[in-house]
């Protein structure tokens, strides 16, 4: 478990102070895939480096499995770091060494027996699907393959936490997906807690169960991915959500809406448990429903839908229909034409 309590970080350079983190509190539970999203300069990089103490907080506490990291001696800190794997945007592999050696490095540092190293490295290379590249060098690999090697290296010392620092930002969308699948596999197979920082909402959407949104060194929203996606509060969060969820009426559809006198337009956000909703509404209240626009988006194993409908009927029945929807814990908002 990772806990950050009121963590702040200030950099002093040439007399000017920059606040990278401002009173950030966060809890990441065992087995979570926790995403931190924010634009560059939001403090994500500093935040993730607090966990393995590559950056020391100016104030506040970092607790790993309940232990305050600031109490550790250098030696204890190194031991803790062996329990926290890290992968990087630019992979940070040793270009002068073979793939085998790159994966073996954490074990060499721990002075592991050579035989054990060989077995473990081959097992890891097999896990990431690159056992045939053992004798190759990093510059002979593609970006996606390099990141797989980075992952194998991070897993070599059997960590319980894996930190991913923009791990897919240098990769194309397809390669990104395959790396994300690998991370999910790691999370499930070894029950490793994963913390991901990214500026891409699609990564959060695909594999995270919890998310924190950062802006200007602060966490502005945090929680279950579905909740944060379904009901974003801050404008930055809304912007991020919009990059993956199309919930606005596209302009050419908006232009073609037939404005029927007495009709009203509603936007409805729903989830996959509200399948029979519209049917019930029509049956119970006798309103006419025109579907203007609808989308469904997949977030991990859940779906979240957005729908714009036109309701036609007597104003009292329309009001009743709308309050019926609202009681089903569905977010309903009236739109202007």
């Amino acid at each position, binding site marked *: 478990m990772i806990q950050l309590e009121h963590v702040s970080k200030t950099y002093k350079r040439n007399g000017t102070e920059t606040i990278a983190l401002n009173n950030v509190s966060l809890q990441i539970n065992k087995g979570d895939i926790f995403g931190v999203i924010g634009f560059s300069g939001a403090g994500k990089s500093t935040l993730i480096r607090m966990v*393995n103490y*590559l950056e020391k907080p100016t104030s506040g506490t970092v607790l790993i499995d309940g232990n305050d990291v600031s109490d550790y001696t250098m030696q204890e*800190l*190194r*031991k*803790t*770091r*062996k329990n*926290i*794997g*890290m992968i*990087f945007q*630019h992979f*940070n592999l*040793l*270009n*002068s*060494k073979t793939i085998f050696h790159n994966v073996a*490095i*954490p074990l*060499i*540092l721990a002075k592991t027996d050579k035989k054990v190293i060989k077995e473990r490295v081959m097992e890891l290379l097999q896990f990431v699907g690159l056992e045939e590249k053992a004798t190759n*060098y990093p*510059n002979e690999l593609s970006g996606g393959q390099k990141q797989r090697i980075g992952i194998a290296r991070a897993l070599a*010392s059997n960590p319980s936490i894996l*930190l991913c620092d923009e791990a897919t930002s240098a990769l194309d969308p397809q390669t990104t997906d395959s790396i994300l699948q690998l991370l999910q596999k790691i999370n499930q197979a070894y029950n490793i807690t994963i913390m991901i920082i990214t500026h891409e909402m699609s990564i959060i959407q695909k594999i995270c169960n919890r998310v924190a949104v950062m802006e200007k060194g602060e966490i502005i929203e945090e929680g279950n991915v579905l909740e944060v996606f379904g009901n974003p509060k801050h404008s930055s969060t809304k912007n991020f959500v919009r990059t993956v969820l199309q919930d606005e009426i596209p302009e050419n559809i908006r232009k073609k809406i037939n404005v029927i006198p007495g009709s009203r337009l509603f936007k409805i956000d729903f989830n996959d448990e509200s399948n029979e909703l519209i049917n019930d509404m029509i049956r119970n209240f006798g309103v006419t429903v025109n579907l203007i626009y609808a989308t469904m988006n997949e977030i991990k194993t859940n779906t979240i839908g957005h729908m714009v409908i036109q309701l036609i009927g007597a104003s009292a029945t329309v009001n009743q229909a709308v309050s019926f929807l609202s009681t089903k814990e569905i977010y309903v908002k009236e739109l202007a034409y």
Partner: protein
Amino acid sequence: MFQTTVTVDQFLQAMVDTFYMVGFSLLVGSIIGIPLGILLVITRPGGIIENSVFFKMVNPVINMVRSLPFIILLVAIIPFTRLIVQTSIGTAAAIVPLIIYVSPFIARLVENSILEVDDGIIEAAESMGATPMQTIWYFLVPEAMGSLILSLTTATISLLSATAMAGAVGGGGIGDLAISYGYERFDSFIMLVTVVVLIIFVQVIQSVGNWLAAKVRREN
């Protein structure tokens, strides 16, 4: 044209003296300079074992020694040389200033080579819980190896040219031959031969250095 007063034995002895001076001072200079260069990298502000006292003391000293042309260094430290090797003339006497000349040079070159290593590599090492020694040995040195070899190649060639001035303290070597026979006794033939030999030496040293560096860098 092909007449000369220099015997073959004399010429061979000069070559041996040159090899001896370059080889010995390169060896001792590397033993001093390489660790010094690494220390400069790790103790600098933001380094892995930051130590501003050491850095601020050693850095100007290196600059000081490096600012002296070898011919001045050679004569300026004669009392020190006499203290170390009990004499101020001959090949042994030349080696003391050569070492003092090349050590800070190697330190500076090594420093630059290691600074070229991506900070990400150091961060990766730290994230794995590597000790400072492990970071140097398993990450910095291997990643900088190609550049380090080229640095030592440059240092070797500089040493070769510095040995030519060792003639001023009777150090011997090919450079000494060129000055005391070729120049001072108008022996054009031996002058020509030493020039050709020096050119060949430099070519060979540089080629070997390039080849080794390419091999460890795996540029192919």
